[in-house]
C-alpha cells in the first residue's frame, strides 16, 4: 500500500500547530518550541510544504534593530485543506484502532 504523503507524526504535529491560528504568520523558533521538533526535522518539512505551495513564506523585519529579518510561515488555502484532511484521517485511524476488538471464534 503506498504511504499517504504528509502524514508522518512530525508533519501532523506541525499541521496542528499551524492550524491553531491559521491567519497568523509564525516563526520557525516558535514552531519548534510548540511542536517539540528540532530544527533539523522542522525545516526540511517546511521546505517540502513550501515547495509544494502548501505553505506561504515571508520575511519580516526584526523588531530589534541590528538583527536580521525573520522568516515567517503560514498555510496556504490548499495547505489548510490538506492539513485538516490529514489530521482528520489520523484521528479516524486512532479511533478505529481503539475500537478494534477481535471477534470471538
Amino acid at each position, binding site marked *: 500500500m503506498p504511504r499517504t504523503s504528509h502524514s508522518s507524526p512530525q508533519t501532523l504535529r506541525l499541521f496542528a500547530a499551524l492550524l491553531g491560528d491559521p491567519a497568523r504568520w509564525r*516563526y*520557525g*523558533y516558535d514552531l*519548534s518550541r510548540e511542536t517539540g521538533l*528540532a*530544527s*533539523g*526535522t*522542522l*525545516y*526540511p518539512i*517546511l*521546505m517540502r510544504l513550501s*515547495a509544494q505551495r502548501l505553505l506561504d*513564506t515571508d520575511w519580516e523585519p*526584526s523588531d530589534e534593530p541590528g*538583527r*536580521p*529579518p*525573520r*522568516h515567517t510561515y503560514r498555510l496556504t488555502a490548499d495547505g489548510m485543506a490538506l492539513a485538516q484532511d490529514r489530521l482528520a484521517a489520523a484521528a479516524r485511524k486512532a479511533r478505529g484502532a481503539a475500537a478494534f476488538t477481535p471477534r470471538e471464534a
Partner: protein
Amino acid sequence: MRRAARAVLVVAVRGRRERGGPWGEAVLAEFDRTNGRWEALRWAAGGLRAVWHERRARVSGLPRAVRVQRAVAITAVLGLPASLVINQFALTGRYMPTTAMAPTVPVAGRFLLDKVGFRVTGIERGDIIEFPIPDVPDDHTLKRVVGLPGDTIECRDGRVYRDGTALDEPYLAGDPQISRTVDCGGPVTVPAGELYVLGDHRTVSRDSRQWGPIPQRSVYGRLLTVIWPLR
C-alpha cells in the same frame, strides 16, 4: 560555546558567499532566539541538517550535465588519494620477474598482493606469500608456505614430507623435471615465529632449502589472485 555553534552554522549556510539560501538564512536568523548553550547547540546541529536538505534540493534542480560533471570531479578528487592509500597499504598489483613460482604464477605474469588480509586471518599452509629475500633484503620474492611452526619438513625421492607424510601437491607442474624436490638437506623442524617456504618450480626456485625457515614478521603480503595471463 554559543559563539562557536553560531560560527559553524554561518559557515555552513553561507560558505564564501555574502548570503546563503533562504532556508539557511531563516535558521540562522532564529538562532538568536534560542536560550542557553544546549538549545543553541541543538538548533545549530539541526540547522546543518536543514542546510544539507536545502543544498540537495538546489543540486537536484541543476541541469543533468552539471550534476554529472560535478560527480566526476568529486570522484576524481577523492578517488585518487583513496586509491593511492589502498595501493600503498592494502592491495597492489605486482609483476612476477622470475620463473620460480611457475606454473602457478608464470614468469612475466601479474598478480594482486593483499597486504592486510593475512594479518587478520593468519597464514596457512599452501598460502603464497611475499617477503624480502633473506640474502638480498631490498628485493621481495614470492613463495608457497609449506611448513608452519612445529612442522618437520624433509624431502625424499623428489617428494616433500611434512611430519613424515608425503604432501599431495596438485599445484606443481606435471613435468618431474620441474616438480622434483631435491636438496632439502636433513629434516627441518620450523621454529616458532617462522615459516618454511618453497617455490612451485622446485628445480629453479631458491627458497627455505637454501635459506632455512624465514621469519613470519618479515611477511609483506599474500597472493590474492593471478590477473595476468587470463585463465
